[in-house]
């Protein structure tokens, strides 16, 4: 079949490059991008640059940062180096969040696209299913799953993926509902495109901007979620993470603020970077809503 020129891209208000330029002009968004790469850099190259095992006992417990012999961020209740923990604690969190995000996008976009495209009974059934997962209190459900099964990075990623997809499904559905009766979709139908082609090649690219924004924000939510589970002691017991550090030092933070402040700051900066990037993308894709 000769490739008929598909009017795929016509809905995208500022095309990709314009949006990117707009994004780069947004100072907050660029700051978010820098923070994000900073965290990535620290997580992947930090352990090479700061060669201290986070599990080693390096000094007396509870050494305040700035006191003699203390590491830059002090030591925790066992005398372990907090800075080493912060540097090494990110990889679990980021990995879990990334796997969960892939799951969230896969489930959410598929269900939302099918519901929005076909409508009718398919829509009703899929939306009931989505509602069910929306009713489940996310953290509690994840806690139950992790308790009943093993608390490994895999279980945790699956648990987070299972509970965070509904908002993306609803958004995808709304976009598909909005787009499915527009001219260019009718045109694609008229030239005999299959449903699969219309969904994936005609509607999906046009629904992409809000989905990208939403995915960025969901990444932030997944990180907060992993941190929350780890804080409760439901993370993978064999790997260090920021949330776990806070949880382990929970009994002593009143006389050792640094043991909980720095790991928390790492989580905060990571999530903030996603929020800023998501916000910048939103403004870039949809200049009308800027500043709201």
């Amino acid at each position, binding site marked *: 079949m000769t490739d008929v020129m598909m009017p795929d891209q016509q809905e995208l208000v500022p095309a990709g490059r314009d949006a990117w330029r707009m994004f780069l002009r947004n100072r907050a968004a660029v700051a978010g991008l820098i923070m994000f790469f900073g965290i990535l850099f620290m997580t992947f190259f930090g352990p090479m640059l700061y060669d201290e095992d986070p599990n080693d006992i390096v000094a007396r417990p509870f050494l305040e940062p700035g006191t003699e012999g203390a590491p830059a961020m002090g030591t925790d209740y066992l005398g372990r180096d907090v800075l080493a923990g912060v540097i090494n604690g990110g990889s679990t969190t980021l990995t879990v969040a990334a796997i969960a995000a892939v799951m969230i996008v896969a489930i959410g976009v598929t269900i939302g696209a099918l519901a929005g495209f076909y409508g009718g009974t398919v829509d009703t059934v899929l939306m009931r299913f989505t509602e069910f997962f929306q009713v*489940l209190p996310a953290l509690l459900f994840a806690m139950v799953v992790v308790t009943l099964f093993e608390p490994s990075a895999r279980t945790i990623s699956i648990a987070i993926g299972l509970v965070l997809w509904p908002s993306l499904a609803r958004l995808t559905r709304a976009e598909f509902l909005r787009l499915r009766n527009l001219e260019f979709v009718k045109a694609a139908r008229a030239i005999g495109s299959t449903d699969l082609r219309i969904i994936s090649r005609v509607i999906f690219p046009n629904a992409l901007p809000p989905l990208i924004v939403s995915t960025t924000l969901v990444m932030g939510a997944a990180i907060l979620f992993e941190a929350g589970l780890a804080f409760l002691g439901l993370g993978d017991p064999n790997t260090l993470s920021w949330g776990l550090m806070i949880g382990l030092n929970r009994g002593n933070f009143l006389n050792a603020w640094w043991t909980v402040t720095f790991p928390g700051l790492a989580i905060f900066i990571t999530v903030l970077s996603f929020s800023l990037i998501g916000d910048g993308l939103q403004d870039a894709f949809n200049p009308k809503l800027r500043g709201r």
Partner: protein
Amino acid sequence: MRTAAAKIAQSLGLILAVIVLNFSLIHLAPGDPAVVIAGESGAASPETLAQVRADYGLDKPFVTQLGIYVGQVARGDLGESFFFGRSVTSLIADRLWPTVLLVGTALIFAIVLGVMAGTFTARRPESPASHAVTVLALIGYSMPVFWTGILLVILFASVLKILPISGMHDVEFDGGLLASWLDVARHLVLPALTLGVIYLAQYSRLSRASMLEVLQSDYIRTARAKGLAEKVVVYKHALRNAVIPVVTIAGLQFGALLSGALLVETVFNWPGLGRLAFDSILRRDTPVLLGVLLMAAVMVVVANLLTDLLYRVIDPRIRVGARRTRTKVST
């Protein structure tokens, strides 16, 4: 009225689905379901396990077992906590009120203050206050709630020693009813603040966005054209419509709010359902954990029903299912 009945039927269906999920999880989990139900990490005596097998009909086919389980839950029997030697239902009943109090206070605080801040800044979109709302919303959304709580505890324990940082009552408390309410209220401030601040930030941003949109609509121009005072236009005409997206999101986020409450309760030793769930995990008290999950799901369903009800109060025109907002939303 038909829609109301359908809503309630649908809600009951959702709760039934959660019960089925609960039971399926017990069976999907590795190991003997009797051991999972009995909890105690496999340390249950053979007599206890035999008792559990008989109670739940674990030697019968899966569907029969499910029927027995659903029947028991429907009668309010969520099993027995082997740690406390009490029925799970009574344990949950004891812990329900503190959680409802915490979540309710945080929610009302966030919505009322958020809508006020949003309305204020929508009338001055370029003011410093308006930019502050944007920044604070981003920060509030990005802070892990348990960390916010811990930082507040550090602050109030070491610098501002004016509020209690743990629990729900004073240990040496011996006053009358009113004094005891005041005591609870003082203990409530920090947990509710911790939980509410995240949503306060989001709701102020959301209500500003929707207020800005509403203020540009035709009916507002009409109201102004016929010479109504600006206060009446904003607070009587615009606010009603501007508040709808906030209610929508608050309803959708109720599950997330409950999750947050769980973490906050752990930080502040607040004796609610979250604390109970957390302790149950440490004790391997599975029946309690599953009971809390079910109770929390019921709370979300009830919250959604209330949201629907609230729509009808705020806006009599609303046809459920036809609402849609075009404002910045992050759920």
